[in-house]
Structures are given as C-alpha cells and as structure tokens.
C-alpha cells in the first residue's frame, strides 16, 4: 500500500504547489481558503521560499505578477470577493503572458455572499475575470488528490504556454479531508526555457521587457491573434475530462468540481436501481471539453447538468452538444443550508430519466 496521508483539501493545494517547485506565495486571508496561506507561512521559510501576507488581494496578485515575470513559480489563493480584486492583475498577466497559478476556493456570492459551498464563480473563471478578452487555463479538481495533482499540473501548463492558470476549487473540496497519496513532481523535460523573464540583462544584448501595452500600428491586434492562437492550441492539446458509463447511458449527467462528487453518488444510487446514467466531468473547464459532449450526445441526446449555482457551465454544455440534444439543468446557488445531497440529485435523475 502506498503512503496515504489524511489531508484537508486546502492543504493539498499548498502541498501540490510546493512539490511542483512553487517558492513564492503571496496572499491575503479570506474564508474558506485560509489553510493555504497558513500552510505556506509555515512551510515556505523552511524551504528558503517566500511567503508574503500582502496588504490586499490587489497587491498579492501584483506580487505574483512580479515574481512570475522574474521567472519564479509563484502562486496566490483566494475566494470569490478576493478573486474579483485580482482580476486586474490577471488581465495584465494574461496580456503580458506571465505564468503563475491562482487558486479560487469558491464561496457563494454575489458580493460578500456567504462562506459555504458554491460554484458561483464558473463564469468569472472561464471568461478570465478581468477586462480585455482573455482566458486563463482553468482546472477543476473534484477530490483532495486532484487538488494536489492539478495544482502541480497548473504550474507546468502555465510555464509551457506562458499563461496564468487557475485551480477552481470550492468550499467543500477545500474544507473536506480524505486520503492523499503524495508523489514526487516530475518536471516535464520539454518545458520551454524562460529566456523572456526579467532577471537583469546579465550580459544579454537586449533588455527583456514583459508588458501588455502595444501602441504601434497593428501591434495590439497581432498580439491578440497570438493569444487567440494559444487558446486554440490549448483546446487541441490540453483538454481533460472524465467520462463514465456513456456506453449504455440513456441520460448523461454532467458536473464539475465538488458538484461532481455529489452527482457520482447519485449516479451510483440510480445504477443500483437499473437506471442507465452516465457522467461527463470536465477537468479542464477552460479549455472546455467540447468534443466529448458532441460525440456522446449523438447517441444519448438527453443531458442533465448539475451545478452549485443557478446555471453557468450549462451554457458551455449547450454550445458543445449535438444540435438535436436536450440539455436540462438542476442547480442550487449555495449559502447555508443550500448544499444538495445525493438523494436530491437522485430524485432529479428519476424525474429527467422518465420525461
């Protein structure tokens, strides 16, 4: 038996980051992700790394911007209201092509909202959050193990594509504890060198400039087409999803992150009663796994999308499925007492399975 640890989701994020070589963490306290900065404040000094509790989320993301531009593996973490404040920095980082990892342990909104389980920030995440029309890579773990593994992956993808990557968790995943099998991070050997990073010229002929301002004729348009091509490349190469039981499915459930955990139990209940229900779980929500929806719905047109919000990912599902597919939605937006249980989802499966 492998070494299995009993770990809280938030701590798994921090452990994965450190294992991936992150040595620069900048954050600001906000529930329900405080275990991450607390862990980092404890562990970074032991590794010769940097932990700074910034004066604001705005400052924290800009410290990440600086550290990422300087070539370091840098990270910040927050929850909804804090991610809104980081949106400015994320836009600059996307425009300046600065790799870094941003973690959102979602809570319900809008505004101060609440501190319970929610997936209210799907739109914010997949649409990039800030101004100017850009995307982040967005990974959506659904277990403590995936919080660990996908945080590591986020650093590698960020570096490979020179893009900020987001780990989109939620209060359920962040606060729950389960088994984690730690493992050594294998840094991909083919990651491009960070010869663009600002280090001081140190003998280079030309100074490196990391920026998002393009004023010359046609320059900005070319830059935006370049970013656009990168998103297309991501879609082609880095789309990840889990598909279960699609072969005989008469109803496809789809959910990401914490909601997928609840859905998995509901599907087990349904299968036990002989209902043929399958699952598509996007692991990357940007790039969105469009193709599996299209191919699966040719055979099984009925889809029930379950989210812990009022309907966000369902828009991407509708854009992805076969034109004849029938996409339905069930969601709860979060807040105290608003976490659906598997029995509730099972009841929805029965209902949509029949009609």
């Amino acid at each position: 038996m492998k070494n299995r640890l009993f770990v809280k989701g938030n701590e798994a994020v921090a452990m994965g980051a450190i294992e991936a070589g992150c040595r620069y963490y900048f954050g600001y306290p906000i529930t329900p992700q405080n275990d991450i900065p607390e862990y980092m404040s404890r562990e970074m000094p032991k590794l010769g790394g940097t932990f700074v509790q910034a004066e604001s989320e705005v400052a924290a993301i800009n410290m990440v911007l600086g550290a990422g531009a300087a070539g370091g593996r840098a990270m910040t973490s927050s929850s909804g209201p804090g991610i809104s404040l980081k949106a400015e920095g994320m836009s600059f980082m996307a425009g300046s092509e600065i790799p870094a990892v941003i973690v959102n342990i979602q809570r319900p909104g809008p505004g101060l909202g609440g501190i319970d389980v929610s997936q209210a920030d799907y739109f914010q995440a997949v649409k990039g959050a800030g101004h100017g029309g850009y995307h982040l890579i967005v990974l959506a773990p659904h277990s403590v193990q995936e919080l660990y593994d996908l945080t590591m992956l986020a650093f590698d993808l960020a570096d490979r594509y020179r893009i900020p990557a987001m780990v989109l968790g939620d209060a359920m995943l962040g606060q729950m504890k389960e088994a984690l099998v730690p493992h050594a991070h294998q840094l991909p050997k083919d990651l491009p060198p960070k010869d663009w990073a600002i280090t001081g010229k140190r003998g280079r002929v030309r100074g490196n400039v990391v920026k998002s301002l393009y004023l010359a004729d046609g320059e900005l348009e070319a830059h935006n087409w370049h970013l656009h091509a990168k998103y297309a490349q991501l879609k082609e190469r880095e789309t990840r999803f889990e598909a279960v039981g699609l072969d005989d499915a008469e109803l496809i459930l789809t959910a990401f992150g914490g909601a997928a955990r609840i859905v998995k139990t509901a599907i087990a209940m349904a299968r036990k009663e002989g209902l043929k229900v399958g699952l598509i779980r996007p692991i990357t929500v940007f790039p969105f796994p469009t193709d599996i929806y299209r191919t699966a719905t040719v055979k099984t047109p009925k889809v029930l999308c379950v989210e812990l919000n009022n309907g966000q990912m369902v828009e991407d599902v509708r854009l992805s499925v076969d034109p004849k597919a029938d996409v339905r939605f069930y969601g709860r937006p979060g807040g105290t007492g608003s976490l659906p249980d598997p029995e509730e989802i099972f009841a929805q499966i029965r209902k949509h399975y029949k009609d």
Partner: protein
Amino acid sequence: MNDNVFMAGYGGQGILLIGNLLACAAILENKNATYFPAYGPEKRGGAASCTVIVSGVEIGSPVMGRPDSMLLFNQLAMDKYFERIASGGLCIYNSCLIEDVPQLRTDIRKIAIPANALAVELGNARLVNMVMLGAYATQTGIVAMDTLKAGLDAILPERNKGFIPGNIMALDCGAEYVRKAGVIKD
C-alpha cells in the same frame, strides 16, 4: 464494513475532532474515508456538525441527505436531525443532554449513552466526544479500537498530545458501555 455517519452537537463538544479521528483511523486501515465539516463564521459556541463516510470503494459525495448513522450530542441536534436517519439506521445519542427522543421511528436502532456522566466519572467533562466515538466504533465495528487510539497521535497537535491517555480511557469507557448495555430496542 462501510458506513456514513453524521455527528452533531454544540461547538466545543469536540465533534469535529472525533469526525477527524474516525476518518483518519479508516484511512490508517486502508479504507477510503471522507470527513466534511459544517462550519460557521463563529469560532466558538453555536452548532457543530460533520459527516464521515467510510467505504471500500471510491467515495462520491462527502455529504448524505439520509445518513445511515448519527451521533447526536444535544437536544437541538436530536430535534433537528433525527428524522433524517435512513431506515434501518443507527442513532447513538447523549442521554445526559437529550431527554426527548422521537418514538415514532421504530426502524432505527437507538443507543442512549450517558456520555456527560461517564466523562465526569473519568474526571474530565470534555471527554464526552471520545465516549460517544468509542461506543459508535464498538457498536458498528467500523474501525478497530486500536486504530482509533493510534489515530489520536496522528490527529492531535503536539500541544495536546498529553491528553492522549485520557482520550484512550474515554474511548474504552464508551466501548465498555455499549458492550454491557447493548442495543436499546424501542
């Protein structure tokens, strides 16, 4: 064996600690387990609850609408949650703080543990949680008592390790109580 157990009471009764301990022990026994706390903005007082799921296969939801087992620590928790126990399920409750037990559900095994009194007899009123957990583990066999005891070392922060012998006594006390009293059938 598999189980999903919901535990509820006052903040300060150590409910989250035994939820942690149970899930940790299950993982030490190479089972799958999840621990999911319900939490509020306040750090002290208020209500506390958590769900622990133990399984031999991959665990989906860390919460259940109708749990198979409940550990209820006060009247408020009894009033609020008892009806949600699944048919054929188990309810272990702290009879020192719970007088009023719904009588209509005859499909549930109910075990009354005078946990506060037993804890006071042991010399520390704060051991209520361990008494309840010892009773639950023994009644269900979900994890071995020895694993729970080993789990204490993994779960407790260094500053609290001095409490381990007392906690072990309380786990044994709860175990002993159910062995003697057995299941109460209404």
